[in-house]
Every structure is written in structure tokens, then in C-alpha cells.
């Protein structure tokens, strides 16, 4: 039980993909100007991460390891991620064209979002020992994918809330928009460093 809790807390706070691992920064800066698209982006990434963790575990466990094809890891994982991003794209285009346009390029860019590939690779390294499968590794993988997505959502939501208020603040001309966002992001990253000392 503690292991499950450790994975959740670890992926959301201690090793937050954005603030500690510095993965997936592109949508984090790109879609964090308003809260609503940011939340939707977080949910889309969470979905892709969870599903990608599930499928990549199956591929890794039942195809790549038995046939000694570990060198196909990256390309097959990218294949899975690209498929799910396409799925999300079709779904959002159908359900909410407005949201689809608000995402713009950042939606297909989830494909190359290193946080998604990162969590898949991390799963295959954390929950497999050489070619052995650790106990519970399937549920661990899915949980880690989901929690990493939640961590991403948390980060992008916090950021968008701050940036919405920044619109009202008097920011020096040279720092307007993106530069101040970088400064805010690094300050938040320092704050998240505080979780590193946590021991469960």
C-alpha cells in the first residue's frame, strides 16, 4: 500500500515532471495563459500519459522483452503516444471546436511532449529489472502515468492562475509575457524543491 502512495506522491510532488524533471515545458509555457484551456490541456495530457503507460507496458512486457527487441523501445513508445494524441485530437475536434482552436499547435505537440515519452521510459526502467518483471509493475506503471499527468495538470493550473493575475500587474516592458513566465516557473520550481526531503 505504501508503495502505491509513494508513487502517487512521488510523481505529483517530489518528482513533478515539470518542476523537478523539467519535462514537457513546451505546453506548460504555451497553453498556460488562461485557466480553462490549461485545465483541458492537463486533462488531455493525463489521458495520454495513462493510456500510453498502459499500452507501452503491454508492448514492453509481451513483445519487446520476449523477442529481445529492447532497442525498439523508443520508436514503439512514440508510435503508441502518437496514436493516442491523434485520438484525443479527433475527440476534442468533435466535442469542442473552440477548445481545439485554443490549443492550436500544442495539441499535436503532445506527441513530442517529452513528459509523455518520459513517463513511459521511466516506467520501463523503474518497474523492470533488466528483463525481469517486478511484482505489481503493471498497476504501478498505470498509476505512475496517471499521477504524472495529475502533476502536470497541477503545475499548468498553478501557472495559468498566476499568469492570469500577472496580466493585471505592472511588469517591466522587457519582461512582459514569456520572460516573466520563465521567472515565475523557476520560482515555482524552487518551491517544489522543498518536497525533495519528504520521506514516506
Amino acid at each position, binding site marked *: 500500500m505504501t508503495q502505491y502512495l509513494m508513487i502517487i506522491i512521488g510523481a505529483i510532488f517530489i518528482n513533478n515532471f515539470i518542476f523537478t524533471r523539467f519535462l514537457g515545458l513546451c505546453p506548460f509555457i504555451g497553453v498556460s495563459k488562461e485557466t480553462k484551456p490549461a485545465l483541458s490541456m492537463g486533462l488531455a495530457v493525463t489521458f495520454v500519459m495513462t493510456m500510453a503507460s498502459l499500452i507501452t507496458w503491454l508492448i514492453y512486457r509481451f513483445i519487446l522483452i520476449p523477442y529481445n527487441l529492447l532497442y525498439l523501445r523508443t*520508436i514503439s513508445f512514440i508510435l503508441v503516444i502518437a496514436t493516442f494524441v491523434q485520438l484525443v485530437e*479527433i475527440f476534442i475536434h468533435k466535442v469542442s471546436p*473552440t477548445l481545439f482552436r485554443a490549443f492550436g499547435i500544442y495539441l499535436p505537440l503532445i506527441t513530442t511532449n517529452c513528459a509523455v515519452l518520459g513517463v513511459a521510459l521511466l516506467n520501463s526502467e523503474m518497474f523492470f529489472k533488466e528483463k525481469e518483471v517486478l511484482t505489481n509493475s503493471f498497476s504501478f506503471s498505470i498509476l505512475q502515468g496517471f499521477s504524472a499527468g495529475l502533476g502536470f495538470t497541477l503545475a499548468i493550473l498553478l501557472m495559468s492562475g498566476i499568469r492570469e493575475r500577472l496580466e493585471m500587474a505592472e511588469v517591466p516592458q522587457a519582461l512582459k509575457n514569456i520572460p516573466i513566465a520563465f521567472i515565475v516557473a523557476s520560482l515555482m520550481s524552487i518551491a517544489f524543491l522543498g518536497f525533495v526531503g519528504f520521506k514516506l
Partner: protein
Amino acid sequence: MLIPILTLGILGLLFGIGLGLAFKVFKLEEDPRVGKILEFLPGANCGACGYAGCFGLAQAIAEGKALPSTCAPASIEERKKIAEIIGKELEEKTKLVATLICNGGCIAVDKFIYQGINSCMAANLLFGGQKTCPYGCLGFGDCVNVCPFGAMYMDEKTNLPVIIEEKCTACGLCIKACPKNILTLRPIKNKVYVMCNSTDKGALVTKYCKNGCIGCFKCEKVCPSDAIHVKNNLAKVDYEKCTLCGECVKVCPTKVIHPLSSTPGVEE
């Protein structure tokens, strides 16, 4: 060699089939005219039409819910092209421009020193702003900031916003942004208008703003075409009757009736 190729090939095929099925389930029916109409809309997403951005309006036009002339910022040629796409005739509208009806700016007296957020909206919340005149421009440029077409700038000398008429598209965003409601739309050819919104009595107006309308009736008396009237201590030009003769501009003691230099019969 064969195994990795087969593995990836089969995986790709499976995912491809899955996506193909998903495409069928979430099939999107889009009117091809929407994209074409969108090409001729300005793309500023100003929202003046009442739809969520240009895309929303393009959809509404394609569905026949909105007229092709709904977009105020689009030029006449663009509107004609849009009308062509959906096969309808375009009814002409007179071109309007945003107009500031305040001539106070730095001339208008302050009642206190305001040191708050640099925004008219915020200043207006504090006793209606720092100007003694309760009607006039506060000069923080909310209208300038909101203009998506770069058609406004703050004049540093007068501390009043200036509208560049060639660029103004009458989208009305500045009108919504102004807490004092002193921006209005007027037909572009009517270049004679009163630059004041104060309905206070003349004696009071002179105290707080030398550039305000004092309601002296001189313009009303001199107007040959009965186009300017003083009501509630404030002169107002009837745009339909005005012939731009410029007589009222000459007699106005506070120079509050605005003549633009291009107006015939009006001297600078």
C-alpha cells in the same frame, strides 16, 4: 531482421485501424464554406459581432444565422467576397469610426492625485476617477490597450486618446472598455462634432475644464441648417442634418466643437 520490421509493422497497422475506427465514430461534418469565409474575416477575434471569435461568425454566416455584413472590422471588399461565397447580396452600411467626445485631458482639473493601478477602470472605481469633471476622460488608455487594430494612441501633450480613422474598424471594443462612456461611433464623413459630454451648467464647467461645452447657445443660433442643438447644457450635432459648413466651429467660445482640418469651410 524480419522480426523487428514485422513487429513495428503490425503494431502500426493495429494502431492505424484503431484510429480509422475512431475517425468513423467521431466523424466531423464541416461546411467547406466556413474556411473560405474565415479567409476574408480580419482574424482579430475582437468579438464585436457577438460570436466567439471570427471562426464562430464564419460558422454562423455559413449556416445563415448571421448576415455577411455582420463583421464591422471587415472592409467592404471583404464583405462582398463573403456575400459571394454564400450567394447573397450585400446591403451597404455607412462606415463608422470611434470618436472621443472629451476635450479635457491635461486641461481638466484634478481633484486628487491618483496613485493606483494604471487603468481607467480601476481609477473610476475610486470616487469616479481623479478628474473633477465627472464625465471626462481619465487618460490611462484602457481604450488604447484594448484596440486590436492599433488604431488608437495616447497623445502625450493632451493626455487624450487619438483615433486613427483609417485604421479604425468600429468594432466597438474601446466603447465597451471606457468606464466613462465617452467613446461613441459616428459616420466618418461627419467631421464636425462636439467634444464634450458634460451636462453640468456652464459656470461649473468653466471651473474644472476650460475646454468643455458651456451650453451658450451660440452654435445653435448660428447654424443655418438647424443641425446643432443645446440640450441639458450640452450641444449636440445632428449628423443627418449637418452640412459641415463650419459656422458653429467659428463661434464656439471654448473651441469644443471639433473641426478636422479636412472639413470644407473650416479653418484650422
